[in-house]
């Protein structure tokens, strides 16, 4: 094996070791990237370290001042303001007013609200945390079984990653150089499918164990009308952003900025009209919350950029691609292997890091297996051209990555819900999540078997 490749593999092992030892993810990427490049420069003198270091004068600035990435802090700010303005609460109350009276209806309303809030926040963890705070007390007061309630919310939180506009979708699109808008279009139907599957799962669960979800009294008409009236502007806002992006009326950065502006305006209007919308203190809190999330994401993006250079110089993506080409496995089998690996990695890595670290490895392999970058759909191994493959694989990868958020032993969403419901044992929450996990496996099988579920809408709107 060539020295450079060996150094690359040692670097990969070091990365996982450092992650397991709780080094911040971005710092681990940065350390391995710089250290690995230094090792490469010793082993292969033509890979000089001096010129490599010199590019750090502009590399960080190049990452943070990218116009394409400016959508990230704006969507994050929109989500934080939406949380402070009480949009999550209005969503849950409004949907509860519509379906809360049927058995399991409050849990279904929580799933719908998770999807709605996920669309705005773009983050699964933020969705689980916010909706957990909003819906868990209601579910507990209505005597829903803790296992069922916490499982529903942990699973519902995963909807954030795929319902457009999602930060993870944006970052995936940037890595593989796909159209962000087409990624959003491709995610729409699979996202909707997730909501339907989760609601069906709840329906089956409450039929099997009706004692887990007692029937509730319908709201009085005035209360119901008020809740629905508060729901309508929120839905209008979400639909405005989603349709604006989907129909190509906005590009992502303006959509994020206009969305944030509309949420701020709506929040302040609510304060004036009802007194419980967005306050100045709430806006300040939203700015600070978005500072933490944006800072974390940008540092990971920078770390990933440094790490990517090291892996590329070490020739690891090419090594993987060469192995895949001579392995004799069917392309679909390799794709399934990749998805399985993503589920496995999801047990101890967060979704964003996985996308940033793993996708640059997997993508060249898939392109090679498919027949190259310029292959036509007729000649391609997966039956689609490179552009479509980007969309299809992106959706599959993100669905699988989001599954990691509820997969034992880590399952970040489960940890968040456990913090909000300390009296429910972690094992119970994982058991509550299990039916949703199975529903997700069915959805993944459908998306693998029927690529048009992801590719249909972008094809129609192209």
């Amino acid at each position, binding site marked *: 094996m060539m020295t450079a490749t060996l150094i690359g593999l040692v670097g990969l092992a070091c990365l996982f070791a450092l*992650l*397991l*030892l*709780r*080094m*911040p*993810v*971005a*710092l681990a990427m*940065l*350390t391995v990237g710089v250290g690995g490049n230094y090792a490469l420069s010793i082993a292969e003198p033509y890979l000089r370290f001096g010129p490599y270091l010199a590019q*750090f*004068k*502009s590399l*960080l*600035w190049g990452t*943070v*001042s*990218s*116009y394409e*990435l*400016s959508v990230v*802090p*704006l969507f994050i*700010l929109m989500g934080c303001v939406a949380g402070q303005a009480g949009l999550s609460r209005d969503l849950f109350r409004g949907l509860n007013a519509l379906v809360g009276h049927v058995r399991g209806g409050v849990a279904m309303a929580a799933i719908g609200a998770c999807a709605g809030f996920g669309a705005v926040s773009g983050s699964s963890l933020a969705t689980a945390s916010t909706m957990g705070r909003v819906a868990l007390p209601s579910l507990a007061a209505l005597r829903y079984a803790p296992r069922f309630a916490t499982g529903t919310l942990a699973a519902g939180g995963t909807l954030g990653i795929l319902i457009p506009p999602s930060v993870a979708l944006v970052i995936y699109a940037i890595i593989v150089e796909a159209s962000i808008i087409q990624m959003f279009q491709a995610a729409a139907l699979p996202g909707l499918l997730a909501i339907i599957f989760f609601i069906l799962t709840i329906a089956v669960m409450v039929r099997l164990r009706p004692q887990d979800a007692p029937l509730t009294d319908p709201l009085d008409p005035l209360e119901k009308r008020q809740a629905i009236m508060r729901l309508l502007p929120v839905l209008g806002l979400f639909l405005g952003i989603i349709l604006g992006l989907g129909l190509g009326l*906005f590009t992502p*950065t*303006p959509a994020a*900025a*206009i969305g*944030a*502006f509309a949420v*701020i305006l709506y929040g302040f209007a609510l304060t004036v009209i009802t007194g419980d919308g967005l306050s100045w203190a709430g806006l*300040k809190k939203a*700015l*600070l919350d*978005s*500072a*933490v*999330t*944006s*800072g*974390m994401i*940008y*540092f*990971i993006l920078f770390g990933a950029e440094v790490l990517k250079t090291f892996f590329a110089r070490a020739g690891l993506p090419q090594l993987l691609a060469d192995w895949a080409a001579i392995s004799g496995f069917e392309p679909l089998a390799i794709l399934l292997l990749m998805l399985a690996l993503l589920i496995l990695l999801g*047990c*101890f*890595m*967060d979704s*964003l*890091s996985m996308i940033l670290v793993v996708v640059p490895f997997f993508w060249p392999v898939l392109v090679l297996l498919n027949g190259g970058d310029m292959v036509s759909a007729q000649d391609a191994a997966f039956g689609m051209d490179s552009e479509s493959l980007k969309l299809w694989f992106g959706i599959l990868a993100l669905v699988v990555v989001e599954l990691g958020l509820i997969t034992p*032993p*880590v399952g970040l969403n489960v940890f968040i819900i456990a913090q909000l419901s300390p009296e429910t044992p972690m094992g119970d929450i994982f058991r509550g999540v299990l039916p949703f996990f199975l529903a997700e496996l069915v959805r993944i099988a459908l998306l693998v078997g029927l690529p048009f579920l992801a590719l249909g809408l972008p094809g129609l709107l192209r």
Partner: protein
Amino acid sequence: MDRIGQGLDQGLNQAALLAALVGGSILLLIIGVTVTNTGLFIADRFAAIIGHHVMGLSGYEDFVGLATGSAVLLLMPYCQAQRGHLAVDILAAHLPSALTVFLSLTWLVIMMLAVFSLGVALVFGLLEVRDDQAVSRVLGWPLWPFLVPGVGGLFLWAAICVKQLVTTALSGNAP
């Protein structure tokens, strides 16, 4: 000595908070400029009906890129102050506490060195773009002033790491 330490600790926290709020305000400014630009494009659609044209803001993407760069680097110190950088807890939770503290201190030292080096590199970058009289593509604005908040943000971030290093070492508890 304690009072000086506390004062320094509070001062750094306040500086990080202020930097985050300035960064957040720049994001709000970007939102304002974007809404104006989009409003002008919409107005152009309507004006076209009666044969007129309304221009969008020239160099809009230039501005958003530069402003985002300044804003993001100002958000970093607060992210560090809140220990917001993502880490994986799967194994570390089961390690002896002394080892956890040691690891935490080690990562803080590496983080501080890395961020300080990035700050120094950005200073060289700033001097280079100033000497080259580099300007943005469409607006023609000089680039170097936009790097100044970034340099400040990075050195403040490194200082926050030092503060956390001292706090962790003195308390003997890993966060």
